[in-house]
């Protein structure tokens, strides 16, 4: 059993497990932090961005002024933003049988894996994961295609050139694998390969392996996976949460008794408490609005935003913000809000009981009904005429490199009355803001990451007790910025097996048994022990035992006592007349003198020495066999 690690990003994993001749990909995370190296894509022409100076090396030998631009002391690539893909060279992607998706954030690389690679397998995901994942992909494609950029920068990627560039461009990894965004056609084709599954559904793969998604508590439809055969069990834990937000709580007990537990997707903000962050978010928001400023919240269009809106729903009245308009701008804003209301089965108990009334599970339905929250597909169209300030705008993309958020940065960045509040933990806010510097607007960093922290995960592991744990190497040491915090790492016995991008790990497994079915035709098994020949065949994907052809092989001895005496009365039809018996230490030797034949009888063996008298030999053989117990 082997694990191939195709991504080095601990929260956007992409691993491949080879287990009992099935090849299973676990998640398809797309590392989008690469886009931070690029210039933002403005929705309307930005004089500021277009006037940025090109970059030429100090000695003037390298001139990349077309590809690279300088802004506030940093160099950015002027091209359509590109993503860092999972490793494609480590194994042949066309051999992958199935892909298991754990949540909608961890499937964004799917079209790169399933399209144009010869992939012919099946993708398994829950319905909310598929639907919301589709929305997020659609949004991404829309962001990119809305502002097409003819230029594709490639020169800077040459190793000899990249080496000479200023940081952090110099230190960007795997730049050769960076790719532009896929098309909607690729998305549709990739998602057509998805087969829907429900929590605790047992999915048989080729009769060899069973996979089961379990609720992971992190987002709508998010799952951990159990991959097991009758005797081996691998748990794959990806983005999980123990906090009570909107999704169904995490199923922990089903992870018990794993031989190997693959642990990914822990919190990226181990020191930030989500509840505290939510408080900061609300108070900063209220403060800015009261002072007459606008609030910009760069966010994904699904996930934490539902919790933010729910929190605001309660907060608005108390904070006297009843008249402040809240805008949610995204090509998929409407769909995301609508979809969130129809997945009752996947929600926490409280929200489920609301549906029974019947009431919409999320209060943002009421915010929309009372016109407090309005959603628009983009800043163009209705929004531009209905837009009032001061207001709160939720919009993407959280990297600040593309999407409607770029426009608001240009619009509000110059005033210190306005505030940008970061809630998504995926991007460093300083890097995100870099191409907008110098900036007058206030910046507040309230990253909300509900995934498991180190304290929760060690408690979880103590409870479910896997024999071995595999995790990204980042989890086996404290974060580089807080190297003294030994509590921000995994400490386990035996120590976890770390992986990094391109690792291939042999998983410690000793398989000893396989389960097959004995067909009733074989008949009652009479004794506690029987020797059988079996016909091993695969019927309906599971091995069965059939039939019972004749048997001969091993002969353990019944008691030999008295057998020598029996031999003395050998039937005379073989013409045996004279038998001489000799006692030895271990048994007897019988000498048939006329036939010149010796029979050496011992506890654990019988040796017949005779002439080539076949009738006599077989007669003696059968005689001996009568005293032996057949297995």
């Amino acid at each position, binding site marked *: 059993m082997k694990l191939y690690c195709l991504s080095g990003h601990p929260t956007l994993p992409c691993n491949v497990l080879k287990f009992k001749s099935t090849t299973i990909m676990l998640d398809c995370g797309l590392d989008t932090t690469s886009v931070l190296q690029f210039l933002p894509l403005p929705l309307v022409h930005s004089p500021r961005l277009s006037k940025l100076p090109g970059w030429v090396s100090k000695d003037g030998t390298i001139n990349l002024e077309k590809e690279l631009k300088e802004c506030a002391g940093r160099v950015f690539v002027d091209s359509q933003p590109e993503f860092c893909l999972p490793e494609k060279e480590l194994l042949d992607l066309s051999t992958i049988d199935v892909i298991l998706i754990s949540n909608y954030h961890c499937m964004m690389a799917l079209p790169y894996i399933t399209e144009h690679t010869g992939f012919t397998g099946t993708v398994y995901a829950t319905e909310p994961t598929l639907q919301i994942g589709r929305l997020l992909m659609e949004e991404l494609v829309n962001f990119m295609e809305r502002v097409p950029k003819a230029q594709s920068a490639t020169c800077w990627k040459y190793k000899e050139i990249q080496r000479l560039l200023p940081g952090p461009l110099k230190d960007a990894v795997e730049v050769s694998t960076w790719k532009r965004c896929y098309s909607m056609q690729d998305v549709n084709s990739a998602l057509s390969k998805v087969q829907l599954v429900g929590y605790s559904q047992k999915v048989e793969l080729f009769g060899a392996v069973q996979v089961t998604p379990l609720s992971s508590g992190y987002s709508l439809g998010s799952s951990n996976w159990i991959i097991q055969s009758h005797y081996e069990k691998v748990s794959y834990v990806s983005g999980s949460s123990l906090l009570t937000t909107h999704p169904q709580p995490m199923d922990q007990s089903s992870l018990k008794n794993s031989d190997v537990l693959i642990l990914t997707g822990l919190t990226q903000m181990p020191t930030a408490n989500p509840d505290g962050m939510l408080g900061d978010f609300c108070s900063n928001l209220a403060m800015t609005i009261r002072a007459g400023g606008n609030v910009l919240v760069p966010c994904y269009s699904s996930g934490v935003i539902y919790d933010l809106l729910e929190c605001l729903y309660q907060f608005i009245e108390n904070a006297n913000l009843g008249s402040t308009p809240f805008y949610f701008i995204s090509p998929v804003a409407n769909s995301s809000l*609508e979809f969130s209301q*129809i997945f009752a089965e996947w929600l926490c108990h409280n929200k489920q009981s609301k549906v*029974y009334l019947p009431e919409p599970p999320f209060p943002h339905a009421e915010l929309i009904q009372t016109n407090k929250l309005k959603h628009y597909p983009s800043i163009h169209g209705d929004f531009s005429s209905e837009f009032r300030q001061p207001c709160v705008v939720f919009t993407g993309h959280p990297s600040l490199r593309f999407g409607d958020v770029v426009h608001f940065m240009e619009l509000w960045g110059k005033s210190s009355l306005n505030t940008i509040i970061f809630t998504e933990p995926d991007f460093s806010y300083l890097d995100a803001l870099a191409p907008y510097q110098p900036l007058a607007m206030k910046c507040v960093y309230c990253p909300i990451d509900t995934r498991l922290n180190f304290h929760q995960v060690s408690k979880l592991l103590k409870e479910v007790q896997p024999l071995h744990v595999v995790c990204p190497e980042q989890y086996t040491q404290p974060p580089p910025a807080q190297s003294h915090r030994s509590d921000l790492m995994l400490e386990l016995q035996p120590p976890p097996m770390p992986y990094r991008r391109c690792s291939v790990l042999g998983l410690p497994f000793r398989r000893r048994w396989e389960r097959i079915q004995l067909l009733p035709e074989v008949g009652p098994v009479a004794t506690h022990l029987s020797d059988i020949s079996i016909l091993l065949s*695969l019927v309906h994907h599971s091995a069965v035992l059939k039939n019972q*052809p004749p048997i001969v092989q*091993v002969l353990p001895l019944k008691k030999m006592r008295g057998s020598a005496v029996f031999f003395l009365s050998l039937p005379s039809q073989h013409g045996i007349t004279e038998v001489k018996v000799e006692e030895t230490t271990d048994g007897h030797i019988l000498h048939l003198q006329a036939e010149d034949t010796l029979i050496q009888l011992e506890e654990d063996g019988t040796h017949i020495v005779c002439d080539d008298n076949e009738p006599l030999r077989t007669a003696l053989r059968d005689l001996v066999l009568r005293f032996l117990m057949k*297995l």
Partner: protein
Amino acid sequence: MARVPKVLLRGLLGLAVTPGAVTLDVLEGAGQDVGRSCILVSIGGKNIMLDCGMHMGFNDDRRFPDFSYITQQGRLTEFLDCVIISHFHLDHCGALPYMSEMVGYDGPIYMTHPTKAICPILLEDFRKITVDKKGETNFFTSQMIKDCMKKVVPLNLHQTVQVDDELEIKAYYAGHVLGAAMVQIKVGSESVVYTGDYNMTPDRHLGAAWIDKCRPDILISESTYATTIRDSKRCRERDFLKKVHETVERGGKVLIPVFALGRAQELCILLETFWERMNMKAPIYFSTGLTEKANHYYKLFITWTNQKIRKTFVQRNMFEFKHIKAFDRSYADNPGPMVVFATPGMLHAGQSLQIFKKWAGNEKNMIIMPGYCVQGTIGHKILNGQKKLEMENRQTLEVKLQVEYMSFSAHADAKGIMQLIRMAEPRNMLLVHGEAKKMEFLKDKIEQEFTINCFMPANGETTTVITNPSVPVDISLNLLKREMALGGPLPDPKKPRTMHGTLIMKDNSLRLVTPEQALKELGLNEHQLRFTCRVQLQDPHSDPDTLSRIYTHLKSVLKGYTIQHLPDGTVMVESIVIKVSSSAEEPNTKVLLLSWSYQDEDLGSFLSTLLKKGLPSGLSSM
């Protein structure tokens, strides 16, 4: 009390390899009757109640299943491992509060989320009509409905729910109404699938039932429309619209009795689109306050509707109607044409009955019965052409309005039932919830086409079905690998192959291991049986030369065997040892010693016979 249909599936316990059996007791109504469903299944020592329906045609004790069939002494908890409700229609869940709260059952009750949401509303609605309007006593209370619902565990589609260590259940989509499910019940290798009500063709708001090839021992299917191959849906819809249209055109009123949830939504979508297309002005009403609420359920459980509605719901929600408005009691006396959907569907009580009484005397009006009506209800009577109805306080009602029956119930027809059998590939078939004669016809058809047994138990009858469970055996990987190595490269998965091993039964488990391992585990020694055979041979050569000649000879005769000429003066054929000796007196008479163990008996015997015949001349010694 009427008897409850019960299905008992009794499987085998432990590891005996004798064939098992599954028993089914048809408690009430699910037998050869469409009135109400309640089936008891015993499988592998577990007892499961499938549906707990109420008969709408009775007003006395007979409306509930006879639970005394299960036990005479009080509570059912210790006799039932779980109760499963397939969908929210009262003929499938109406007796639930009676069973759990009045007879007594505290175990788990499984149903899907939509069923869990809607079922208590219908129960309460029904309770109100029965108790508050008709003044009946000895009926369950509102509190009992609430307490009963607390015992409900929601079920998701395809989720495998482990009821206990051995019993697992899994729900499949059944169409029919919002949240309807088929269930697979599994204990060990034995399984039963219960369909509840289902339909195999997608309609305007629901998808078609689907199940995987799960090969249950028994498939229990409803057979409401056992013989009907219903005419194409389009025709029926066109017919319906034509009739409504004509009546409205001549100024008549159309009454369509429906249950608040289910067919009502289907017909609303149909009329809504027709009104829109034809630009019709006559008002359409939907009675009772339940409607708006009902439509809300459809919006929130949109994932349970068909693909088209699910796909477009963000742009346009099909359950937000423009033309259909809420009904007020006073509208019934308004002049002019109108279309009214009113509950309940079988005209046995409530608003639909009130409106019917008002409109029955006018031949311009029309009533369209879109679903099945249970015997004893007014719906059933007028469908049978009865023109004079006896009402309470001895009044008679003359029926002058036109009565139309148009089957819109989403049940599988004969074709659909056959289709489901093809999908699931059951080993036995059991028909319930249908009329005896029609079921007989379908039974023959099924037995002919699929050559499987088909049962159709009457109410209160117990059916025992023999199952043939296989026994799980653990095979040692050592053995598998060894056999694999012997068989050359990777085996062809489609080709069966013979292998050899020893079956050990120990601690209630069966294991297949290599014979050596079995001996070791059981502390037994292998008994070696060896033969040494002297064969005399005339061969005028030196001993080593003779041996070489034997080697060459065997090489040419035995193809595909491992033959070695060893330096210690022996020839080995597989594990058989051949030596040559001669006495000084007769150097040309060689004595060959062949030695083999019993495992090589066939080869040893063959060799001794072969060598006895002598060596062919012309063999080179080297």
